[in-house]
C-alpha cells in the first residue's frame, strides 16, 4: 500500500517531479499552515483538555485522591480526558474540508493514500501536542507517582498513535454524513475501546509498577491493524 508512484514521461503530458512522500508532506504542511492561521484545533483541544482536568481535579476534592485508589482510577481518567479531547478537536481534519467545500478540489487532485497519510501525520502531531500538554499537568495536579516513566512514555506514544489513526479514519467516514458532531463519538468509541482498555492497563502498570507484558504487543498489533485497515478503507470512503 505504501508505494512511491512514478510514471514514465511517455504516459502523461505533465512532469511528475515529486514523489508520494512529498505529497504526504505537502498535505501535512498545508494543514498546519491553516491551523496556525486559525488556531482552531489547538484551541479546542487545549481548552477542552484543561477544562476537563480542572473538573476532575476539583471533583476529587482539595486533598486529592489517596494513593491506593488513585493508582487504579487516575490512569482511566487521564485517557478519558485524552479521548474526549480528541473527539472534540480531531474530526475537524476532514469535516472542515467538506464544510468549506475544499474537499472537491482535494478529491480531484490528491492521491488517496497520500492524503490519508498526510492527514494521519497531522492528527498524530495534534495528539502528540495534546499529550505533551496534558500529561505533565495531570501528573502534577493529581500527585501521581509514576514508577516507570519509560513505560508511560511508550504507552502515550503507541496509544496516541492508535487514537490518531482510528480517529482519522472515522473522521473521514463521518465527514460525509450529516449530524457530524455526535456521530463521530458514536462511531469512534466502539472502535477505540480495545485501545482504551490496553492503554489503561499499561498506564496502570506504569504507575503501580509492572511490565508492559502482552498488553504492549497487543497495543502495537492494534495500531498496525488499524493502520492497514485505514490504508485499505480510506480510498473507498473518500472516492465515490
Amino acid at each position, binding site marked *: 500500500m505504501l508505494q512511491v508512484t512514478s510514471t514514465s514521461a511517455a504516459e502523461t503530458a505533465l512532469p511528475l517531479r515529486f514523489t508520494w512522500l512529498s505529497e504526504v508532506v505537502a498535505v501535512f504542511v498545508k494543514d498546519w499552515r491553516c491551523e496556525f492561521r486559525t488556531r482552531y484545533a489547538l484551541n479546542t483541544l487545549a481548552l477542552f483538555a484543561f477544562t476537563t482536568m480542572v473538573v476532575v481535579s476539583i471533583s476529587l476534592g482539595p486533598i486529592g485522591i489517596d494513593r491506593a485508589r488513585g493508582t487504579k482510577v487516575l490512569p482511566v481518567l487521564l485517557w478519558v480526558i485524552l479521548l474526549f479531547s480528541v473527539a472534540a478537536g480531531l474530526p475537524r481534519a476532514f469535516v472542515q474540508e467538506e464544510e468549506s467545500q475544499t474537499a472537491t478540489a482535494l478529491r480531484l487532485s490528491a492521491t488517496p493514500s497520500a492524503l490519508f497519510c498526510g492527514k494521519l501525520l497531522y492528527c498524530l502531531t495534534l495528539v502528540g501536542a495534546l499529550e505533551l500538554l496534558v500529561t505533565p499537568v495531570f501528573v502534577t495536579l493529581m500527585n501521581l507517582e509514576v514508577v516507570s516513566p519509560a513505560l508511560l512514555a511508550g504507552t502515550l506514544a503507541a496509544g496516541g498513535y492508535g487514537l490518531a489513526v482510528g480517529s482519522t*479514519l*472515522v473522521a473521514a*467516514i*463521518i465527514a*460525509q*454524513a*450529516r*449530524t457530524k458532531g455526535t*456521530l463521530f463519538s*458514536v*462511531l469512534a*468509541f*466502539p*472502535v477505540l*475501546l*480495545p485501545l482504551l*482498555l*490496553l492503554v489503561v*492497563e499499561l498506564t496502570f502498570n506504569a504507575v503501580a509498577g509492572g511490565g508492559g507484558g*502482552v*498488553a504492549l504487543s*497487543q497495543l502495537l*498489533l*492494534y495500531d498496525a*491493524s*488499524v493502520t492497514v*485497515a485505514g490504508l485499505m*478503507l480510506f480510498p*473507498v*470512503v473518500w472516492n*465515490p
Partner: protein
Amino acid sequence: MKTISAWLLWLWVSLVIVGAFYYAPLAEGFQGGSSRILFFHVPMAWASFAGFIAAAVWSVRYLMTRDLRHDRSAYVAVQLGLVFGVLATITGAIWARIEWGAYWNWDPRQTSILISLLFYGAYLALRGAVEDPEKRARLSAAYAILGLVVTPFLYWIMPRLTFSLHPEPVVNAEGKPKMQSEILQVLMASGIGFTALFFWLHNLQTRIQALAERKSAAREQGYGS
C-alpha cells in the same frame, strides 16, 4: 421449497424447545430450572455474532461488486444481529441475576456482547445519517469492516482484565469442562436452530426491504397511491 423449509424450521425449533424443558436434565450447580436459559441465551449470542460477521462479509462483497443488494444484506444482518444481541443480553442478565445476584457483572462475555451492540448501534446511526444510497452503502461497508478488524482484540484483552480489575472470578457456564451429553445435544441443536432462524429471517427481511424500495420507487413515478 420455501414453505417446506419454513415448516422444517418450525419443527426443529419446537423440538429444541421441548428438548430444552423435557429431554435435557438440569445442569448441576445452577439454581432450580434456570440452567434451561442456556439453550436459548447461548445460541442467541452466537446468532448475534454471526450477524456481525455476515455483515462484514456482505460489506466486502458490496465493495467488490458495488451491487446494492449486498449492501441491503449487510444492513439486514446488522438489524438481526442487534435484535438477537439485545435478546441475548436480556436473557443473560436474567440468568446472571438468578445465579450471581446481580444483573450485570462486567463478565467478559457480557461485556463483549454489550460492545457488539454498540457497534450495531453505531452502524445503524451512520446509515441514518447518509441519504444517498451509494454513499451510504460505501461508508457503512467501510465501518462494518473496520468493526470486524477491531473486535478480535476485545476477545484477546477481555479474559485478562477480569483477573486484574475484578477480584472475584466469575464463573461462566460454558467454561464447565464436563457437560452432560443430553445438554450438549440440545445446545447444539438449538445453535443450529437459531442460526437457521437467523438466515430465514434475513432472507425474509431482505425481501421485505427490497419490496419497500420498489414500492417507494414506483410511487415516485406516479404509479399506485
